[in-house]
Structures are given as structure tokens and as C-alpha cells.
């Protein structure tokens, strides 16, 4: 037990947890926006792969890191546009379209990568975002290392989450988004454009998902691998449920999840890791996600119109 305690009170452990949580926060916020507006976006996994690729590729071609983030965001919006056209005005099955978008985005990233770099055997590296020690704050004992010595993208993740929370709860736009996710017919009667708001939410949310993917290449691994997203998108969907569709709770969920992920890596180095197969540790995050879903699903307030298309003609 003392072993576990030592891990849990070390600042480097929490710094790792915050780092691991960052891409999840971007993508979870993206998914949360889509779902609050009434659209389940299963394109998330593929859009993250696309963002990881386009962000990396832009920087590989010589653009600055910030531009890489912008390119990733734009590529995510493009696939969000595709998703939203099919699911919102046409009202097609959000499950099928989402999985189709995931497949299309993943395959397009792989196709383009192979086309652009046909001969490479080991993935080329880029110079990623470096830790940015915030003045004064980074000198605070423990918290300075855990929270304020991260890369710019991590700070951006938390700012985005804060902005999403404020916009959703404190602005007319947020109210309108929630209205089309709860009761689109009533929202339309108020003069709101259900189609426009839902499409906008999916397009913007997909952009955030792609930035979450870009975090992996621009801030974490500095190369692009085909299977680097590795189910993170699906975990973000679980995190939205876990957070009961609220940004603050979802961020806490992401950090909790990331802490668990960081913990399993460290536990592998302990005597425990010598006894138990490493696959068990790797499976822990997925098992934890399922357990979280079971615990939270019972009292979550699901947006009432989630997955229900809205067609003006119908009553």
C-alpha cells in the first residue's frame, strides 16, 4: 500500500495524469457539444485520427506548431460537416453515419500518409510543443510541477473546457443549443433554426475532437502512428455519459480516468507488474470506462432529443 501512496503523492504522477487527460478533454468537450445539441457523433474516433495526422503533417511540411493545431481543427470541421449534413437535414442513423465517418477519416489519414511517405519505415518525428513553465505559478510546490509546467496545448484544453461550460450555461447561444437537444419542436417554435444549430454544434465539436487527436502528435508522441488513438474516442463518449453531459464533471472524469491510466503504467514497474500480465493493466482503462457507465447511467440526465432527428414537416 505504501507503494501506491508514494505514487499518488508524487507531483510527476499528477503532471502525467493532466497530460494524459488533455487530449481527452478536447475530444470530450467536442462530443459533449454535439450531444447537448441532440446528435451522437461516433465519428469521434476517426476524426481524432484525422486530427492527429493533419496536425502532424502540417508541421512536418514546415508549418509552425500553432498552424498545425489550426489545420487539425479545420480537418475535423470538414468531417463534422459531412457527418452533420447526413445526420441533421437528412436525419440518417447517427450510429451508421458516425461509424462510416470514423472509417472514412481513419482510412483517408492512412491513405494520405502512405501516399506522402511511401518509403519510410520508422515514422518521422517533428519538434513538438515544449513544456511552458508559467511564471510564478510554476514555483508553487507540488502544484507548480503538476499543473503549471505543461505544454501550451494542455492549458488550451482547460481554457476550452471553461469556455464550453460558460457558453453552454450562461449565454443565449448555449441556451439555444440545449433547447434543440432537449425539445427541437419547441425550439423551432421559438424561431430557432434546429438544423443550423445542430449542424454548427457537430461541425465545431468535430473540430475540437481533431485538436484532441492533434495533441497526441504535436504534444505527446511527436510522430504519427496508424493506431495511436487506440479507442480514446470511444472512451470520450463514455466520459460524456460519466460527466452526465456537464462540462465540469466531464473534465473531472477525464482527469480521474487519466490518473488511473498513469497509475497502471507505474504499477507495471512495481512487484505487482511482475506477477500480473501487463495486458491486464492495459485493459484497466477500458474496464474502468464500462464500470463508470454502469454506475452513472442510472441517474444521468440524457438530452431528451439525443439521436432523434428533427424533420420540419413531421408532427
Amino acid at each position: 500500500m505504501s507503494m501506491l501512496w508514494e505514487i499518488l503523492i508524487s507531483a510527476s504522477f499528477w503532471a502525467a495524469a493532466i497530460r494524459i487527460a488533455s487530449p481527452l478533454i478536447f475530444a470530450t468537450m467536442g462530443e459533449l457539444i454535439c450531444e447537448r445539441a441532440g446528435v451522437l457523433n461516433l465519428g469521434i474516433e476517426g476524426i481524432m485520427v484525422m486530427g492527429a495526422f493533419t496536425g502532424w503533417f502540417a508541421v512536418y511540411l514546415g508549418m509552425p506548431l500553432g498552424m498545425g493545431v489550426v489545420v487539425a481543427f479545420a480537418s475535423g470541421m470538414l468531417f463534422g460537416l459531412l457527418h452533420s449534413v447526413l445526420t441533421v437535414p437528412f436525419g440518417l442513423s447517427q450510429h451508421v453515419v458516425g461509424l462510416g465517418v470514423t472509417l472514412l477519416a481513419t482510412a483517408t489519414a492512412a491513405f494520405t500518409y502512405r501516399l506522402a511517405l511511401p518509403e519510410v519505415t520508422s515514422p518521422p518525428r517533428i519538434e513538438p510543443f515544449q513544456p511552458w513553465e508559467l511564471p510564478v505559478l510554476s514555483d508553487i510546490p507540488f502544484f507548480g510541477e503538476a499543473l503549471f509546467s505543461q505544454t501550451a496545448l494542455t492549458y488550451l484544453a482547460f481554457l476550452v473546457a471553461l469556455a464550453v461550460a460558460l457558453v453552454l450555461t450562461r449565454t443565449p447561444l448555449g441556451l439555444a443549443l440545449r433547447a434543440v437537444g432537449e425539445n427541437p419542436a419547441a425550439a423551432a417554435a421559438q424561431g430557432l433554426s434546429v438544423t443550423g444549430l445542430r449542424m454548427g454544434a457537430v461541425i465545431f465539436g468535430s473540430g475540437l475532437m481533431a485538436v484532441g487527436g492533434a495533441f497526441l502528435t504535436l504534444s505527446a508522441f511527436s510522430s504519427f502512428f496508424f493506431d495511436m488513438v487506440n479507442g480514446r474516442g470511444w472512451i470520450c463518449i463514455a466520459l460524456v455519459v460519466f460527466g452526465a453531459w456537464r462540462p465540469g464533471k466531464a473534465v473531472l472524469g477525464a482527469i480521474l480516468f487519466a490518473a488511473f491510466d498513469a497509475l497502471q503504467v507505474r504499477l507495471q514497474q512495481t512487484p505487482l507488474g511482475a506477477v500480473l500480465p501487463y495486458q491486464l493493466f492495459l485493459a484497466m482503462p477500458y474496464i474502468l470506462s464500462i464500470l463508470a457507465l454502469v454506475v452513472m447511467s442510472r441517474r444521468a440526465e440524457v438530452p431528451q432529443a439525443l439521436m432523434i432527428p428533427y424533420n420540419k414537416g413531421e408532427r
Partner: protein
Amino acid sequence: MRLEPVANPTAARRYGPPALALAATVIVASLLALIAGANPFATLGLIIDGAFGSRFALLETLNRATPLIFTGLAVAVAFRAKLWNIGAEAQLYAGAVVTVIVGSASWGAVWLQLPAMAVLAVIAGALVLLGPVILKTRYGVDEVVTTLLFNFIMLLFVSYLVEGPLKDPAGMGWPKSVPVEKELRLPRIVEGLRLHWGFALALISALAIWVMQTRTVLGYQIRAVGQNPRAARFAGIPVNSVLVKTALISGGLAALAGFSEVAGLKGHLSRDLSPGFGYTGIIVAMLAVLHPLGVILTALFMAGIFVGADSMSRAADVPTYIADILMAVALLFMVLAILLTRYRVVWR
């Protein structure tokens, strides 16, 4: 814009959009070939030739279609009841694991042990899907996410097995399982042709599912639950029990894909047994409009694209991932086309 249902669709409306979707997919394929710097016609020709052009190619396509028929059926059965089983990949591996465990040592007559392998594999696959379905009916947990997450857990479990308890000592460090006994492999349908009985089993399964859906009470109940669960419950259909039965059938079908790949083709279990057959099954099922006999055709179509693209990318410099793009594009165009056979778009 809004959508208006069309009461009496004309022939043009019924067949036009799907034909256009197919044409659009071919156009996308040509564009991708152009982008890759290849001649579109030559590329398409190479894909078709590589899939159906020779006896070897044709058998390869049939072999590749076999697991896709099983996973396509698994998805078609489940989606009919609006049970979103995205976990056919996990159920496939469950079937493969059991096939290796039961088949790696002889303990009985072949006529007894080979069917036992299949039956136990089916049970394993069914149980893997039972978990998420009980979570759905009991606690209201969305099965999309749980079945997806199970895929990752199952793959790690397989990785543990092939590096641990089931590791082949003669594997030269390559992580694969002990082999299935030679006499317990699925025999070839015709001596000398590389096509095993798994393919025949897949065709029989499709037929059986079609009969089940059209001629039995369960088939009727599954449709009712899929169309409107509340109305079905009101009509006295035990919705949860129908969902559980659907899950058992669906999981079992996906497991047969694993059984047939191990016992019919590979002879052992490894982490790369399935290049996403479970996910491709979703596309196979959707393109077939969830019709079990249609699944056979769309599985052959998908298998053809994959086998053809593999062979084409060896000849031309077009990455083999073109197959995955075409698959996704065909899916998205086709679901839109099927919608447009029943609705007209009104711009206002």
C-alpha cells in the same frame, strides 16, 4: 429543406439513387487513383482482375468473404432489433479462442469434436455479447460504447493468451497460439481447391437466419422490437427477452467467423487473425439493407474490393487503404441513397 415521404415510388425512384451511389463510389475510386498518380481505368481494372480475374483470385475472394458473411449476419440480426452490436470483433475472437482451446488436443472422434468446437465457440461469442445486453436492459447502459470497449479488452486478452497460456512453444518467438490438430481442421469443399467448409457453413447460416426472420415468431418479434419497442411491449412482446435472444444469435454468428478462420484457414490464433472483420461486418450488413441473403452478395463485394485492392497495390503505386476509403464511401452514399428511395427532398 425537409423530407417528404413518397407514397408510391416509381421504378426510377426505387433503383435510381442506389445506382447513382454505386456510380459515385466508382468515381471516388477513380479520383483516388488519379491523386495517387495512377491511371484510374487501369487501377479499377487491376482491382476487378485481382478479385475475380482468375481461379486463384476468385477462391481468395470467397475465402475472404467467409468471415464477412458471418459478421455481416451477426450485425444484420442485431441491427434489425435496433441492438447496436459494434462488438462483432470481440465475439469473433471469443470464438477463435475457444476453437483453439478445444481443438488443440484430440479427445474424441472427429465427428464429435469438430461440431463441439463450433458449438462451444458459438456459446462463447453469445456470452460475450450477453454482458453488454444485460447492462443495456438492466441499467440502461448504451451498448454501442460497451461493445466497442469490449473489442479492446478482448484483443488484450488474446494478446495475453498467445504470449502466455496458449503460446506455441514452436512459434520461434512469434506470438501465436498452439495449432489446432490437423484432423480437426475444416476440410476443403472440393479436393484441391483452397476453399473450406466454413464458406458452406456461412451460406447455410445466411439461409437459416433468413428462414428465422421470415418464418418464425422470434423473427416477427425481433422486427417489432426494432420498429418500435414501446409498441412491441404494449402488444405483449417480452422486449428484453427478445433482445437477449437476438444477442445470443448475433454473438454466436460472429463467433463462427472466428471458428471458421481458425479451423478452416489459419490453424492457430494470433492477434492479427481479424483485420477488422467485425467492423467491416457493419458495412456488409448496412449495404445489404440488413437482408440475410443480401449479406452474402455484399460480403462478396467487400471481399472483392479488399482482395482486389491488395493485388492492385502490388502492381500499381496506390496504397491498399483505398479499399477502406471505398468501403466507407459506399456505406455513406448507400444509406443516403436508400433514404432517397422513400423520401423526396423539398427545398423551402
